[in-house]
């Protein structure tokens, strides 16, 4: 018995580092929770890994859900590409891809695709990267961040934790400056209420920042998505859908909407 998303990760990386398991299934991998009906991957920002991933999806009979093409021209601008198929047990398998996720540096991505770490059964994002991915507009992701941070050494945990009690405890142990207002408040002995307020503001700013980012993409996507659905590209085999989606995207989907 396997986890279908773990197994897909092995398939995606059969020819070399191509796609790192991320988000909810990475949370499962790190044994924080049993969760996530979908699989998410960061795909290497190059044509060959994108082509290989598409071929794997094609073998599974996947369909291209209304979304950007799995192509570096759009993935490189922060778009995501989504697919779906049903396995032999009729379970819905959803596969989502990005190559330039928010808040993750190009250097981190380059290092990620040098290959999996010793002892890892397949390529999966590290905890630091996973925490950055989880700094979304969704409140539930911040509880996950707090639990992920617990798996880090104290001097790193204090820079990420969303747990007020851990901030208060670690600010006494970790004796170095922090850029976080909540940790600064704890370190100067501002009192619990002040630290709670600072933490709430930190999280709210992260959430609002991600929502502002998403709003740009959502406005830019509308003409393309409407036409994608009208053309029913989500009922075509993957490679055929991809060909049409790219032609459509060349006309209607700005490659880098945040720069326009």
């Amino acid at each position, binding site marked *: *018995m*396997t*986890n*279908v998303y*773990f197994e897909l990760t092995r398939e995606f990386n059969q020819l070399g580092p191509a796609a790192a398991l991320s*988000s*909810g299934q990475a949370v*499962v991998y790190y*044994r*924080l*929770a*049993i*969760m*996530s*009906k*979908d699989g998410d991957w960061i795909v290497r920002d190059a044509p060959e890994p994108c082509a290989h991933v598409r071929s794997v999806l094609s073998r599974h009979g996947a369909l291209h*859900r*209304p*979304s950007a093409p799995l192509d570096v021209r759009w993935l490189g601008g*922060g*778009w*995501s590409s*989504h697919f779906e198929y049903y396995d032999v*047990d*009729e*379970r*819905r398998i959803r596969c*989502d891809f*990005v190559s330039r996720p928010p808040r993750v540096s190009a250097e981190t991505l380059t290092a990620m695709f040098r290959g999996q770490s010793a002892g890892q*059964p397949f390529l999966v994002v590290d905890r630091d990267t996973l925490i950055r991915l989880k700094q*979304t507009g*969704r409140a539930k992701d911040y*509880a*996950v961040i*707090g*639990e992920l941070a617990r798996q880090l050494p104290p001097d790193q945990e204090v820079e990420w934790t969303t*747990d007020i*009690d*851990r901030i208060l*405890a670690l600010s006494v142990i970790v004796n170095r400056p922090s850029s976080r207002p909540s940790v600064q408040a704890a370190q100067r002995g501002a009192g619990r209420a002040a630290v709670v307020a600072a933490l709430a503001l930190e999280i709210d700013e992260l959430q609002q920042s991600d929502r502002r980012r*998403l709003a740009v*993409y*959502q406005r830019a*996507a*509308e003409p393309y*998505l409407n036409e*994608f*659905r*009208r*053309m*029913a*590209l*989500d*009922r*075509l085999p993957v490679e055929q859908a991809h060909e*049409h989606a790219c032609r459509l995207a060349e006309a209607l989907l700005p490659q880098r909407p945040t720069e326009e």
Partner: protein
Amino acid sequence: MKAVRMLSEDDLNLSELTDDELVRAWNLWFDVAQSTNEWDPPYSHGVFADVDGAPSPVSTNEDPI
């Protein structure tokens, strides 16, 4: 004061499961979770998260394009 954890004591033994036990537990959950598929949002997160992810309408024309 003990910090409040995201998971209960029973859930926290995930770290003590063997790889095989973890996979079995996840598959059991995934199988049960299939029952809610039709109520899931089109996209769980990402740039399309708040977009209508409805599939293309079914038409009498069998050739999509």
